[in-house]
C-alpha cells in the first residue's frame, strides 16, 4: 500500500473535519499551487485547546495529518500543542512515504499558525515561545 493503515483510517474517517464558528484563532498554511492548503480552527479556553477542527485541500496524507494533528492537541495546553512536531504526527500515523513528509510539516505549521494568531490577538507572542514559530518559515524539503 501507498499508505499505512493508520493513514488510510485517518484519511477515510478524518477526525475533526469542519469549522469552529466562534474559533479563538485559525491558521492557514500551504498553497493551492502545490496542491495542499490546511486551515486549522482552534477554540482555546484557559490556555487549553478545548476544540480543534480543520479543513484541508490536499492529498490523502495531507488530510490524514490534519486529522491526526488536531487529535493530538485537542484537550491539551497551548504549551503542549506548541511542542507538537511534524515527526510526532508522522510517527503517530505509523510513518509517511518520504515524498509525503512535507504534509506532516504542513500540519505542524497550521497548528502553530493558529496559536500564533491567538497570541497576537492576546498581547503578542511571549519571548520564550518565539522559537516555536521558526518552523513557519521552514522549507518542508528540509524535513
Amino acid at each position, binding site marked *: 500500500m501507498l499508505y499505512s493503515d493508520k493513514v*488510510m483510517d485517518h*484519511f*477515510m474517517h*478524518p477526525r475533526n*473535519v469542519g*469549522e469552529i464558528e466562534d474559533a479563538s484563532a*485559525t491558521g*492557514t*498554511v*500551504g*498553497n*493551492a*499551487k*502545490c*496542491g*495542499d*492548503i*490546511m*486551515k486549522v480552527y482552534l477554540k482555546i479556553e484557559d490556555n487549553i485547546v478545548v476544540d480543534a477542527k480543520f*479543513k*484541508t*485541500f*490536499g*492529498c*490523502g496524507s*495531507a*488530510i490524514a495529518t490534519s486529522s491526526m494533528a488536531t487529535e493530538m492537541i485537542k484537550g491539551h495546553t497551548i504549551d503542549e500543542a506548541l511542542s507538537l512536531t511534524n515527526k510526532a504526527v508522522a510517527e503517530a500515523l505509523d510513518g509517511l512515504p518520504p*515524498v509525503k513528509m*512535507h504534509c506532516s510539516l504542513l500540519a505542524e*505549521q497550521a497548528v502553530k*499558525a493558529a496559536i500564533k494568531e491567538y497570541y497576537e490577538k492576546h498581547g503578542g507572542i511571549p519571548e520564550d515561545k518565539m522559537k516555536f514559530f521558526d518552523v*513557519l*518559515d*521552514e*522549507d*518542508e*524539503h528540509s524535513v
Partner: protein
Amino acid sequence: MAEKIVKRVYLDNAATTIVRSEVVDAMIPVFTENFGNASSIYLEGQKAKSTLEDARARIAACLNAEPSEIYFTSCGTESDNWAVKGTAFRYAKKGKHIITSAIEHHAVLHSCEALAKLGYEITYLPVDEYGLVDPAQVESAIRPDTILVTIMMANNEIGTVEPIEEIAKICKDKKILFHTDAVQAAGALPIDVKALGVDMLSLSGHKLHAPKGIGILYIRKGVAITNFMDGGAQERAKRAGTENLPYIIGFAKALELSLSEMQANIPRIEKIRDELIDAVLDAIPHVRLNGHPVKRLPGNANLSFEFIEGESLLLLLDFMGFACSSGSACTSGSLDPSHVLLAIGLPHEIAHGSLRVSIGKFNTEEEVMSIVPALQEIVQRLRDMSPLYEDFLNNKHTPYTPCNRCAK
C-alpha cells in the same frame, strides 16, 4: 463509505491494459516450445526466426509499412529514446536543434532534456487550450540547424489528437525528419504510416492488451539514425539484444485484433465516454472537461473538479472500486501538477484536481456510468472538507503562509 466494495471497475486503460486472453494464449507456447535464439542456424533457431519474421510482417501489414521498416524494442520509452537520441547523434554535424511540444510524454521530453545537457537546443512548442499543436508554429520554428521534429499523435493525459499529417507534410517539404509518439493512438485510431507521412513512429504493446515490455519503432526505409542499443546483429544490426519472441507474437496478435475490432469498438467506447462526460458535467458543478471536444481519443475523459485535490479523489474512488488516474501514472511520485494540464493553461490548483478516466474495450457502459454517483458523493465530501470551497462559498480568500517549496 463503510466497507471496501468488492467489484472493481478498471478505468485506467491509458496507463496500462490487461493482457487479453488471445494474446496470453498466443504467447504461452513460445516460452517452452519455440524458445530458440532467432540468430541460431539450427532448427530451433530457424523456427524462432520464421515466427519472428512472420510477426514482423503481420505488424507491418497493420501499419501499412514494409516489414523491413519495423524494429522491435523493449517499450514505448525505448522507441522514443531511440528516435530522438538516434537522430540527434546521427545528425549532430548538420545541426543540434530539435522541435517538440510542451505536452509530450516524459519519454520524449526527458530524452530531449538529456540531449540539452549535451549541447542540443530544444524548442518546446506551446499548445492551445485544447492541447493542439499549431502546424504553422512548427513551420516557423524550423531553422537551418533543425534536425528533428517530434510531436505525439495523441496525448496520454487529455487525449487530444494532433494534426500529424499536416506536420509531417511540413517536415517533408523542409526535409526535416519527423517522429511521432503513437503509443496512445495505437488501438484507438487507425495508423497508416504512409498516409501519415511520418519518418518514425513509436508504439507500445501494453496500451493495447499486449504485455508491458515490448515496443516498436517504425523507421521509414531510407531514414538512417544511430543505434541506441549496441551489441549483437539482431534487427538487421540496428537494435541489439536477443529477441523477445513471446511478446513480439503477443504484440502482433494484439495489434491485429485491435484493428479488426476497431470499427465496432470505437463508436461504442466513444458513446460511453460522451455519456459519461455529459452525466458528470450535469451532476456536478464546477467541473471542466480538458482536451479537445472532438479531436480526442475515443476512451479519454479528463475532468477537473474545482476546489479538490486529485490524489484524495483517486483514493476515495479506489476505495469505492474505481481505478482511475490523475495525470500520467508515470509522474506519480512527483508532487508537481501535470505539465500537460499546465500547458493548456489550467491554474495549478485546478490542475491538481483533475481526473483521467480512460475507457477500454472490456468496460461496459453500466460499469463506466456507475462512477457518476460515486464521483458526486466523493467530490461533495472533499469539497465539504476544502478550505478553497469554503472561501468560494463565502466569496472570500483566506490569507495563507506562502509555500517555500513552490516559491523557489
